[in-house]
């Protein structure tokens, strides 16, 4: 069964500082990997996703993530955080072959606080 671990429950960074949110997955083959963001009081929105090919994936709002097979990781990064990035971030893994294609397993989320 697939699973996702986000080791950091809460991260605080200063505005303008760099950001890295960690995500580790467990899956028997190369998975589909996603990062979603949830702003306060809202549903989740896709930031980026990895299917295959280039292991460095660019997303919206200046985010990127790198797939590292050897470490079973898909960490999210941003070089300079803005106050509007304060939100909860979810990593998710989707199976490549599944009788119920389209399902994803989500991590518990990381809450990002941005200090002025």
């Amino acid at each position, binding site marked *: 069964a697939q699973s996702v671990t986000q080791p950091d429950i809460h991260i605080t960074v200063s505005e303008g500082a760099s950001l890295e949110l960690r995500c580790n997955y467990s899956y028997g083959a190369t998975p589909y990997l996603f990062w979603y963001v949830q702003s306060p009081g809202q549903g989740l929105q896709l930031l980026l996703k990895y299917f295959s090919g280039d292991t460095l994936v660019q997303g919206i709002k200046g985010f990127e993530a790198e797939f590292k097979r050897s470490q079973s990781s898909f960490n999210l990064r941003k070089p300079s955080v803005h106050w509007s990035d304060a939100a909860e971030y979810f990593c998710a893994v*989707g199976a490549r072959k599944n009788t119920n294609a*389209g399902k994803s397993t989500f991590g518990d989320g990381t809450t990002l606080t941005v200090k002025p």
Partner: protein
Amino acid sequence: DVKVTQSSRYLVKRTGEKVFLECVQDMDHENMFWYRQDPGLGLRLIYFSYDVKMKEKGDIPEGYSVSREKKERFSLILESASTNQTSMYLCASSGRGSGETQYFGPGTRLLVL
């Protein structure tokens, strides 16, 4: 622009009431999902539907049922609401293929008194 709408943003119900949460998507998606979101527990899948009238239990189906009579609409039913069902409920939809992006509604915050 893709859209998933949920019938209510906030609901307050009494213990024992039957509660209906409605979700509608306008993207002609085959898959629809109901999740429950609680602090520190992330998103937990309650039920999943991959076609009209087709459903599959997720990780925490107890106390819930679902209905999908039309492709665009997926309803979550709390047969007899209990206080431990106080939570945020998120609906999502996606295409059928593996690795499809899920599109989420804004959520319904349910309080059961």
